[in-house]
């Protein structure tokens, strides 16, 4: 309870501010309507009208919740209006990008730790790669993928997601693989261990805490990459597409519901990664 209470307090604070903001922003429209009709309205009349507009500037929490509920439970999960359907598309893209990012990050980290020339040549470019805005890069990746004949929309999405998610894995794994101290390396030398044995028995297990710490960052980055990848695809499917539709057709409720669906998805993914991490730590004998 002592851990839940602060979280709930902050949440309540956000909701209050949100409602106040909704009244303030949405009242403009109410006043405009009244002025056009040549009538005047009191504040007591305005407030209820800011709570249930069709196209509010800032939808109040209960409207977003209702739209979210409608999107999740009010549709068949195969429907194009279902947030479960779109959420799953985004989830699939996120996982593909996540997997690709892990493979890329670990492989690069291994070669950087092994070969000094890789450390000097690849590492600076890995850092530079993260300074390029992904929103600028994403459409180009989509166009190029299409040009070279990749019809599957999942592939460019996974590449964009991997582009963001490989980096935290790379940085953490380089640090993790280098974490064994000289004494531990000397110990293996006294056994006449070869390089592969040193890697498998010492470097790899020693890097695991670093690896799992990076996964939480990587999965969140992968989700963002996937959503960005869904934005310029002509808005067909996925939570990113849903947000774009809401924005293009002036349906803020759709946008906000998709936004919250993405946030919930992110939360679930991070919890799942945390569970995998706890399982792995228990297997490796780390005290809870």
């Amino acid at each position, binding site marked *: 309870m002592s851990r839940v209470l602060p979280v709930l307090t902050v949440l309540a604070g956000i909701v209050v501010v949100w409602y106040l903001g909704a009244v303030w922003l949405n009242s403009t429209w109410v006043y405009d309507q009244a002025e056009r009709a040549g009538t005047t309205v009191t504040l007591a009349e305005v407030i209820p009208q800011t709570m249930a507009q069709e196209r509010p500037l800032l939808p109040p929490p209960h409207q977003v919740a209702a739209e979210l509920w409608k999107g999740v439970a009010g549709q068949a999960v195969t429907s194009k209006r279902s947030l479960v359907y779109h959420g799953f598309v985004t989830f699939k893209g996120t996982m593909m990008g996540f997997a690709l990012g892990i493979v890329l990050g670990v492989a690069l980290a291994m070669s950087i730790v092994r070969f000094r020339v890789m450390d000097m040549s690849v590492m600076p470019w890995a850092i530079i790669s993260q300074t390029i805005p992904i929103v600028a890069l994403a459409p180009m990746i989509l166009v190029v993928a299409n040009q070279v004949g990749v019809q599957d929309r999942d592939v460019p999405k996974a590449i964009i997601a991997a582009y963001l998610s490989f980096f935290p894995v790379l940085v953490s794994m380089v640090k993790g693989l280098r974490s064994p101290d000289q*004494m*531990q390396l*000397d*110990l*293996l*030398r*006294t*056994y*006449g*261990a070869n390089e592969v*044995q040193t890697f498998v*028995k*010492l470097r790899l*297990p*020693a890097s*695991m805490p670093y690896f799992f710490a990076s996964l939480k960052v990587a999965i969140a980055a992968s989700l963002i990459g996937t959503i960005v990848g869904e934005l310029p695809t002509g808005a067909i499917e996925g939570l990113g597409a849903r947000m774009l539709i809401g924005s293009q057709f002036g349906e803020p409720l759709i946008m906000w519901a998709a936004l919250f669906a993405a946030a919930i998805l992110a939360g679930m993914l991070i919890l799942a990664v945390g569970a995998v991490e706890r399982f792995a730590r228990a297997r*490796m*004998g*780390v*005290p809870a």
Partner: protein
Amino acid sequence: MKDTTNLGGDQAVIEAKGLNLVFQTADGPVHALKDVNLTVNRGEFVSFIGPSGCGKTTFLRAIAALETPTGGTLTVNGMTPDAARQARAYGYVFQAAGLYPWRTIAGNIKLPLEIMGFSRDEQDSRVARVLDLVELAGFGKKYPWQLSGGMQQRASIARALAFDADILLMDEPFGALDEIVRDRLNEEVLKLWARTGKTIGFVTHSIPEAVYLSTKIVVMSPRPGRITDVIDSPLPKERPLDIRDSRAFIEIAHRVREGLRAGHSDE
């Protein structure tokens, strides 16, 4: 526990002749070992004592082929240190236990056995035997963090014993432990030495530790690292802790102290 017939024999196990080792550092060359001549015979317990920078650890590392001498000859069991490593001639115990936190105690002891390609059954029986030897039987399934510092260091000794090397090299193995634990482990090392008949090379800062454990005490001094005195201990093999109050013990300790002082006087 092989070659017990040779116990007390005078075969040279470690032989250094005119050994030199110079490190090239940013501040110029550092003479870590200068003209070191030493013969260690089978079954001896040799302590290396001296202040920091006297090359005692460097010498031990050179025996283990962790450092490469720049001059002179060094043989281990008649081979080069590198060849001796391949022949599994020695086990090495570092100052820190260095157990892998992700492996159990048994798993840690299996580490060298896995690398050297012992069968699973062989690994299990060897783990059981060396755990018994260091009096840690029943702790195989524990993780390192569940053990005290002294127990961890015993586990690391078990790890060094697991593959039956004839030589055990120990680099200040009890330096980080408190004196009460250190006394008990010293007794245990002596028992272990008596039971296994191994040749032991032991680096230490402590005069009582060196005198209590050794059959031969090598006193070293720094800048350049060299041997100033080699003392063959007249103490009997059986050594209860209170031997440290005996006249013979005090006399050897005195000679070690004199040797250390002499090494310092020419700075």
